[in-house]
């Protein structure tokens, strides 16, 4: 049987995305640091043009007035600060860019190389297929995050756990937790499982909770996929 009904309720669309930003870490004294910055940008004019810049205040630890002054100093240099990273600071007020947490280091060379590879496929360097295979059950409370590729789980996915994949998700046991496929913006991603007891299914940000999934698909092998912005859940048997 392969019947399914589209969701009637309009649901909200949200998804997680990661971007690469340049973090500037000013040091005291600030006038010296600005001087060094000016010298550096004189050598590479236009480096910050159109690039998102995050202000990392972990070394400087300034007061909020100083932050305002620093942001305007940078904008005079055509460096637009789109977020601020400052440990231990709760709120900077509405006039300043928002606070960011959970930063990860990344290599700029890596990104440039990847984008070159994508721009120029004739060089013969194809990106490697990246599938994550998990041969153990996913337990409650575990979170599997695999932003670039498919996730294959040979066991079951427990209630209260989640899988977030850039590509498709294949589960050969029972899915009792939450599955987010196509999480980096891939609407052709799908979710497959041998037995559907899911708490939530999502593809490219479109989601359905257990309450919105047809009861007829519970306990059965299913796939979930997007068609014209509607998340379909259909039985595979």
């Amino acid at each position, binding site marked *: 049987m392969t019947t399914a009904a589209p969701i009637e309720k309009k649901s909200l669309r949200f998804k997680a995305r990661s971007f690469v930003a340049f973090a500037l870490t000013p040091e005291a004294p600030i006038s010296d640091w600005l001087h060094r910055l000016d010298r550096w940008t004189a050598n590479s004019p236009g480096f910050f043009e159109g690039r998102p810049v995050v202000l990392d205040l972990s070394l400087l630890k300034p007061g909020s007035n100083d932050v305002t002054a620093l942001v305007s100093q940078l904008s005079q240099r055509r460096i637009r600060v789109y977020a601020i990273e400052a440990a231990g600071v709760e709120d900077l007020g509405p006039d300043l860019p928002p606070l960011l947490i959970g930063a990860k280091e990344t290599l700029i060379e890596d990104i440039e190389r990847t984008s070159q590879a994508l721009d120029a496929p004739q060089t013969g360097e194809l990106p490697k297929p990246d599938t994550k295979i998990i041969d*153990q*059950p996913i*337990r*409650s*409370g*575990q979170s599997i995050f695999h932003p670039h590729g498919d996730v294959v789980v040979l*066991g*079951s996915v*427990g*209630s*209260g*756990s989640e899988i977030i994949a850039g590509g498709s998700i294949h589960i050969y*046991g*029972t899915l*009792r937790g939450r599955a987010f496929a196509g999480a980096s913006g891939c609407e052709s991603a799908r979710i497959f499982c041998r037995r559907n007891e899911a708490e939530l299914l999502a593809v490219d940000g479109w989601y359905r909770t257990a309450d919105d999934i047809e009861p007829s698909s519970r306990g059965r092998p299913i796939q979930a996929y997007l068609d014209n912005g509607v998340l379909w859940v259909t039985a595979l048997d």
Partner: protein
Amino acid sequence: MAKVVVVTSGKGGVGKTTSTAALGAALAQSGKRVAVVDFDVGLRNLDLVMGAERRVVFDLINVTQGVANLSQALIRDKRIDSLFLLPASQTRDKDALSEEGVAKVIAELREKFDYVLCDSPAGIERGAQLAMRFADEAVIVTNPEVSSVRDSDRIIGLLDSRTLRAEKGESLAKHVLITRYDAARAARGEMLTIDDVLDILSTPLLGIIPENEGVLRSSNVGSPVTLNEPNNVAARAYIEAARRLQGEDVPLVLPAERKGFLDRLFGRRAA
């Protein structure tokens, strides 16, 4: 070679302490040297269930901090010579436990005993993580209901990631012990079935302990049920579980509902 077994569950009130006492006593009854260790610092109960609360002088915290020797803190059971209790401290909290201190105590216990049973506190925080930290095996106590099973699933995830064995890439044997199983309620579909529980946890079964008033009765008089009422169905189930824990192959029988002659004649009364 001593085996360190953590008795854990995630959820509270499912029968960790009762099961630690019953399994510990059953292992000792079969001739093994057994230490049961209460890790529930601040909310100690194992001493009560073992009937040793009036003989506690030193506790686990004292030993980890070097205030007392292990031999001073261990309390020998009055009924079985080879059963010992290391009580928790009631006046401290879990922050008083240090990983180095626990490592030292467990290493010392390993030299003296065949089995070291660690009674874990509920939850997934520091106390529970230190109780499982040095374990070779784990008994996961679960009631056949959804919240208990989900919490057990969470604990199994921690056992596979936060124990020393897991971090070294070695295997840690895990067993599910289903307690408070009520055959009549399961037959009416009011509880998860054994198959449901095992399907969700995908972990081997150590035993099924039927719901039985003898268990609470024994706890209240301070005696593990396997000692107090050895012929009780729950006690027999614990004794068989202890034999399986030692690697024996004991066939598992689902506790059936016993129907008396009158019950059969008139049907069951509503529970």
